[in-house]
């Protein structure tokens, strides 16, 4: 299969990567860029563990061909915080025990990040609806909801100041 180059802005760093036509974004992130925070739970778009943001929109990186992403911005779990600090959502996941084995966690956080970008004050129902495609077998759902809502509440406090 022929190879060609794709320029990707991943977490603020531009990578020029030689890719094959059938390579997925997940493969490139994990195997080429060693960004292994993005997980592969099914490789067929059914579990959400591989969720990342492309131009601030969530995608299932296992179903996204990288050759179509030339010049796009990709944000992974490694790029969510800044300068060694955690993003508020990540802090909130820790504080509220919104994880057990942690394998679904990066995908959950990226999807929740998108939700908060679009809707800073989601209700519990909205969270359950928006995150329904991301599976957690350990059963951290209620704590994930709490973690997202607490960040929301903090946002609200700030906007009220």
């Amino acid at each position, binding site marked *: 299969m022929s190879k060609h180059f794709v320029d990707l802005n991943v977490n603020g760093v531009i990578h020029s990567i030689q890719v094959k036509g059938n390579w997925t974004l997940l493969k490139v992130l*994990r*195997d080429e860029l*060693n*960004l*292994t*925070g*993005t*997980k*592969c*739970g*099914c*490789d*067929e778009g*059914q*579990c959400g*563990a591989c969720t990342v943001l492309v131009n601030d929109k969530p995608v299932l990186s296992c179903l996204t061909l990288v050759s179509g992403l030339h010049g796009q911005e990709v944000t*992974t*779990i*490694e790029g*969510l*915080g800044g300068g060694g600090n*955690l993003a508020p959502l*990540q802090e909130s*996941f*820790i*504080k*509220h*025990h919104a*994880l*057990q*084995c*942690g*394998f*679904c*966690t*990066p995908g959950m*956080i990226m999807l929740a990040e998108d939700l908060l970008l679009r809707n800073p004050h989601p209700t519990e129902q909205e*969270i*359950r*609806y928006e*995150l*329904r*495609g*991301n*599976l*957690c*077998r*350990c*059963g*951290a*759902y*209620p*704590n*994930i*909801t709490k973690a997202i809502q607490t960040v929301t509440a903090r946002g609200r406090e700030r906007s009220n100041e």
Partner: protein
Amino acid sequence: MSRNAERPRSETVLEYEQEQKFKVVGQSFPLRDAREKVDGSAKYSADIKLEGMLHAKVLGSRHAHAMIRKIDVTAARNLPGVAEVLTFENTPRTLFHPHETQPVFMFNQQLRFYGEAVAAVAAETEEIADEALEAIKVEYDTLPAVFDPVESAKPDAPKLYPEGNLMDPGGVPLTITWGNVEKAFSEAEIVVKGTFRTPVHSPAPMEPRVCVASWDGKDLHAWVSSQFPHRVAEDLATVLDIPLSHVKVVSHFFGGGFGGKKQDEYYLMAALLSIRTKRPVKLEFSREQEMIMGKRRHSSVENIRLAGTKDGRITAIDFDTYYDVGAHGNFVGGTLGFLESFLYIYKCENAVFRGHDMVTNLPTAQPFRGVPFPAYHFGIEQLVDELGEKAGLDPITVRLRNTYRKGDTMKPFGATMSNYAIEECAEKAAAAAGFRSKWKGWKKPTEVRDTKVRGIGVGLSMGWVEWMRDMSNATVKIYPDGSAELFTGTQDLGTGSNTTLCQLVAEELGLPLYKVKLTAGDTSQTPNDFGACSSRTLYLGGLVSVGAAKKARQALINAARLRLGADGESIEFKEGKLLVNGEPVPLSEVIKEPVSGSQHGQPLEYAAQFFPSTYVGGAVFHIAEVEVDVETGEVKVLKYTDAQDVGRAINPAVVEGQMYGGALQGLGYALGEGLTFDKKTGKPLNANFLDYKIFNFEDSPQVSLIRIESHEPNGPFGALGVGEHSINPVAGTVANAVANAIGARVFEIPITPERVLRALGKI
């Protein structure tokens, strides 16, 4: 609420340092590995990337039962980029002995399920490995197959093994009997019976099985996603004939197991490929392979009869069951001898339990959270309800009348219940669920709205954490600056044990949590441990961790006596400080090297057994409220209440995560999950997350979690194990709620709309 009059209310035991204020125990500290999990830096086994690493893939059988007549790998080997191909013809004929299945070879010539490993390939890329799999030419002699445990037991059934299809010791069904069952049934005032069916239940962890193996000519280093890292190291050493001292198994992060990920063939393949190619090798299962080759809970057909008195006391239980243990299973009556434990919940003077471990041409079964109990409770809880109805008792009263109490002796193995706060669990669950006001009587829905009827149901269970297998060991070191390190051989499956075990050590030594370092997940650095299963990690792993901390402190005090010549003086180690007659002495004056203490759990026989002395009963009481649409047959869980005696919550958030996770997996088992196979070919039909539906965010109902803390006198700081049995009563509880709503029983899970409509006589 009505109670069992002649029984005293179970008291909460506060023997363990009564009302003592703990500093570290009892607090919901964040998981100590949470930061790595949320920032993406946690290295799970699949995240390990080594220089020159090859990619391995496994070819699965395309027949449910076949003998390989001929296998030709020449074309595969000749493909550019293929480094090695393994088959049964070029791999060790050393039996591999998992604890929970029959002994098997790495590759078998006789293939007993669709998807069983035929060959493994290591290649430069995954794509080349896939091409190589396609280039392998296999000629099969197909054999007749059997997919149902009852069919498998028939004399004319296709035989999977020369000795037959029954995998219980001695080739006879494991049977446990006491009293006079036939007499009890002939004299019974009430008899209830039923045949209950349960499906193949997949643990379906989010992380598929994976191994990265690296052989340098002398040492084998393997990153494996396993609950049993020390058993994995032994397997690698035994089958590949490498000294155990040269095998290192690492599993620092682990993406869920639930009983599913223990001992498997795939890591043997990855390691052998690495040995043969002298290159690191990564072997990762696809989602489909994870659900097929990754083992699963048995399906079952249970024939149960209860005899009782007219006041609702069980006088006899007759339990006869057929388990489909798949291609290489045998655990219920076989390696684990589980049947004895079935008498654990409802007492009676007469009983017969007969279990048939039937092999079938389906993927191998092994224990998954709750092992046989979720299926057992699906049947028995429904019959206890029937007994209650006939005796005119409500569902809570009939259960409390028939279950054990603290101090009772459990027949026939004579164990005494050290603890069992079942009444408190029942009472608090009933209050939280509003059971008393909602319950309208048997077969009377709690509410009717057009086609939607609501019902409420209950179920109970008990933990069996002192059902100890083999050993647990721990070592604690105290450093010259007063900080400590815990070495544990057990594995954190996402159960938070890496945090809670350190909390126990910190509490014991009077240290803040951050001063206790953890070393775990690496067999070359940690003491041997049987493995993480059976809710034994916090209980047994915790007991030996606390014991090791005590011994390390004693070693420190002994060193101080020697060094300071402080004979007869009071020497203490408190809050990280050494006190001689109350005066602090710098630790570094006493020790230059860390001092350590080790605690060893009692090694037991290979097969599981109950302790004859005590049985630790972690009581569980669940209540489900459901809504059933009698037009469509759909069942929705409106509210689920889960009360559980956790002994003492070392970390309440961790405990609640286990309770919730157990309830949720149980709800999936009750209402939706079940691996299905083509009835003719045995081909898996739904081995993916789209067709095998685990509960997602929207499916998950509101769950009220009620922690009862009875302070188990034998547990570390009063704790009990929690995770295993939290799933047990769920399917039975939901089935009882459905029966209450629609006035008819569903005898098979998952309770699908079709089964509900059949129960209603609509189809």
